[in-house]
Structure formats: C-alpha cells, structure tokens
C-alpha cells in the first residue's frame, strides 16, 4: 500500500507563452495558482498566464510546514484566514484532487502568565469571529497530545494552550497541483522557467512584463512572488514594505504515528506535526538577516532541536533527515499586503511572511476578486498598502504567536 494517494495521470501541459494575456500572474506558487483557478472559476477570466521562474510551486509552497489554522487575533486576519479555512474544508471536492487535508487540530502552547493572557484573549476574539477555539489546561493538552511534556519542572512549563480543532495540515504539493491542474483545464497557461525580469509601465499604467521568454503584454499584472516581490515590484518603480528572510524547516525519518495533532509554541520556539507518511515536520526560527539565499544558518536548527526536546522528550532519538529553507517576505506588522499599487493595473499580493500556505485558497479567492473588479474584496481591503501611511496596522506580532 502506498502511504499517500497517487497523483492523477494528467496534470498540466507546458504551452509556449502567447504575446498577450488579459491577466499575467507573476509567480506560480500556491497563491498564484489559486488566484488563477478562482479567476477562471469565479469570474470566468481564463485568458490568464501564470509565469513561474523555476518549476511550479517550487518556492515556499514546496518548503512550508503545511500548517493550516485561522485562529488569528485581529478581526481582519481572522476574516481572511477563516474564509480560507472554510474553502480548505471543501477543497478536495472542489479541485477533485486528494489534498490530504487533515483537521487534526492545532495547539498553541502558553508558557508564561502573559502567554496565558494573550492566548485567552485570542480564544475569545476567535469565538466572536466564529472561529472555533478553546482554552485548555495542561492536563487537557496532554489528553489531546500525550507526548507533550506538561511537567511543571521544565524550564518553561506548559501552562495551557489554545486549541483549534478544525485546524490541521494538508499535503502541499497536492494542493498546488490540484489548483494547477484545475486552472490549466479551464484554459489558464502555466509557463515554467519563465522569469519576469521587468514590469513595463507607461503613463502610470502597466503594459507588459519582460521575461526570459520575451515580452508578454497584459491588461493586469498581479504579483504573487513571495520573497521576490520587492525585486519584481522595483522594476515598476513600486516599493513594498517587506524584507526577505530565510526560514528553515526540517523532517525526520518516517516514524510510526506518535503525534496526533499540530503543536506550536512561541516561547519555546517549536511547531511540529507528523505528516501522513510518518515524518515529523518541524519549523525553525526565522534567520534574522535579509537574504535571498534559500539556505539558513545551522545554529538555528540546533536551537530548534533543543526547544523540541524540551516539549517532546520522546523525539530524542529521532533523526534530522533533511533541512531546507524558503525565503519569506515579512512586513512591519506581520500581516500581508494584498491590493492595488500606485501603478494602474499592477496588483500586489505579498508580505505573508511565515503564514502564506494556510491562506492559499482564501487569498486566491480574494486576489482573483481584486483582479476581476479592480477593487479589493472586503476581506483583503484592510490589507492595503495605505495602512502604513495612516497607521492602521494589523499587528499580529503580539498575541498571534509565530504566524506559521
């Protein structure tokens, strides 16, 4: 028996780009593919090209730890992430693809009295927003995840946790390929090995993109380039409030099931789940300096291991099999930017930092709406560029823990 389902016999073709499209999406990651899918499905816009500099979904989509949750603090964040979660719940049927969405719940641990206050605050906020959330004591944490060390004698004992039962994980490649296949089937062109080297602007309006496969004219250019957003936007003279950092993750060997849920801890920096095949999937801390090199520093991994063993002594003899890094684009308030830019027809979706995967269907839905209508969807309207001028930030640093 295979431990994961087979992929379908047909995924997508590799067309040569046309000279012009109604919409060009820059970046063939999860967000770009989901946007193309919802453009075609919800708005009937299919004269669309998704341009990917490497291989489809080979950036952060292939490198994240696949955690899905919507238990964010602020109303604005809960809105878009909960919309995403509802879409996740129907996505397998919608795409006709086995994305292995497993609603195994997520525990966000609290280790200090202030952690507890922040966590309870988030639980109450979530409930007002219709997001399932509970506050659990250490014994209840132990019931849900028996391998968590809830002893009071550790350096930072577990004082409790928030629990979102509907949260979980999915299989990232399957998600991306599900969107890609469905979008391609509706006529979207998926073009790999096609790097956008410039965005052409005339009279304040976007005209085309220059690519390694030539000039491609477009009515709308929608960026979905994650860590490379600044680089692409800069060619159109648009500056973005994002900084690009490496973020590392790792997996263990395949293990018999031992970890039934997803556990995240901000204070003792850990987030870990056990994937369908049996490997422990674990995220490390963000590397502090700007870098486009998809490679982090090793001491970050070492710190990660010591944190993991504080909470999960049973992991002691597991092995790190593979480490890798994505490059994430981080904004000053740890919330994304999704919407218009000063250039007409040039839209931006960036700044998801460490939280992009879980938002995939939600942002795809809203970004497609923004492209189709030229105005943001109510759910992404708060995530405008202007908020940095007015000061109306959506600051998810404080109480939302690590935004993975």
């Amino acid at each position: 028996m295979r431990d994961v389902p087979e992929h379908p016999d047909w995924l997508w073709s590799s067309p040569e780009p046309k000279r012009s499209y109604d919409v060009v999406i820059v970046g063939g990651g999860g967000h770009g593919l989901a946007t193309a899918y919802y453009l075609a499905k919800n708005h009937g816009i299919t004269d669309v090209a998704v341009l990917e500099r490497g291989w489809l979904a080979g950036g952060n989509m292939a490198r994240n730890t696949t955690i899905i949750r919507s238990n964010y603090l602020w109303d604005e964040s809960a809105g878009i992430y909960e919309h995403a979660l509802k879409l996740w719940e129907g996505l397998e049927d919608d795409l006709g693809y086995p994305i292995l969405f497993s609603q195994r719940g997520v525990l966000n641990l609290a280790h200090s009295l202030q952690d507890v206050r922040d966590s309870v605050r988030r639980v109450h906020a979530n409930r007002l927003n219709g997001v399932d959330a509970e506050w659990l004591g250490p014994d209840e944490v132990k019931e849900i995840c028996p391998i968590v060390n809830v002893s009071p004698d550790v350096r930072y004992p577990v004082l409790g946790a928030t629990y979102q039962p509907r949260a979980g994980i999915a299989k990232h490649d399957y998600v991306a390929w599900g969107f890609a296949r469905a979008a391609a089937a509706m006529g979207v062109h998926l073009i790999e090995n096609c790097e956008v080297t410039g965005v052409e602007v005339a009279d304040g309006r976007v005209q085309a993109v220059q690519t390694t496969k030539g000039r491609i004219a477009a009515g709308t250019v929608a960026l979905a380039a994650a860590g490379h957003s600044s680089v692409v936007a800069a060619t159109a003279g648009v500056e973005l409030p994002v900084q690009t950092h490496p973020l590392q993750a790792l997996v263990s060997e395949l293990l018999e099931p031992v970890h039934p849920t997803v556990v995240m801890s901000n204070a003792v920096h850990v987030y870990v789940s056990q994937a369908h095949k049996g490997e422990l999937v674990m995220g490390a801390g963000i590397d502090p300096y700007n870098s486009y090199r998809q490679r982090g520093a090793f001491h970050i991994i070492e710190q990660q291991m010591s944190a993991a063993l504080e909470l999960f002594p049973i992991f002691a003899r597991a092995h790190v099999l593979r480490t890798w890094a994505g490059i994430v684009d981080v904004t000053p308030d740890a919330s994304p930017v999704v919407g218009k830019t000063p250039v007409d027809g040039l839209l931006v979706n960036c700044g998801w930092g460490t939280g992009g995967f879980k938002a995939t269907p939600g942002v795809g839905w809203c970004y497609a709406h923004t492209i189709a209508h030229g105005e943001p969807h109510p759910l992404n309207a708060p995530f405008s560029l202007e908020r940095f001028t007015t000061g109306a930030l959506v600051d998810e640093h404080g109480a939302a823990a690590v935004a993975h």
Partner: protein
Amino acid sequence: MLLIPCPWCGPRDEAEFHYGGQAHVAYPENPAALSDEEWARYLFFRDNPKGRFAERWNHTAGCRRWFNAVRNTATNEIEAGEVTA
C-alpha cells in the same frame, strides 16, 4: 553561521551579532515637517534588494558597537573593505 568582520574585534560568528537592517536610513531632521507618506516611508519602508545591500550590524556579544557592512543578499558574501565603523 556567517563569519562577520567586526571592525573592532575581527571576524566573529554571526551568533554574536544583532542585525540592524538597511544602513544609512537617517532619522529625519525635522519629523514634524514630513507628510504622512514621507513619515511612513521612514517608519516602514526599507530597501530589499537581491544583491548588494548596505546594512547594519551590532556586535552585541562583543564590543557592542554598531557598524555598517555591504553584503550580497543573493550569496551572503560580505564585501571585504566595505565594513565601516
């Protein structure tokens, strides 16, 4: 673990340093005279190039001095001769 050339202490492991982001972003002479857009630019917008980047480091676990370096963000290489106290 980058090897960062502190101009006072010599090359040291990255773990001894605190990162300070883009260099040469001066606090505005007269903030009150700035428009909201200009002030937002100072508060929140920093260059994010893929390539040469003039940036700040603080040798927190050493001499505690701030200094500037030029690093290539595509390769992480710090340019010799571009580290300034």
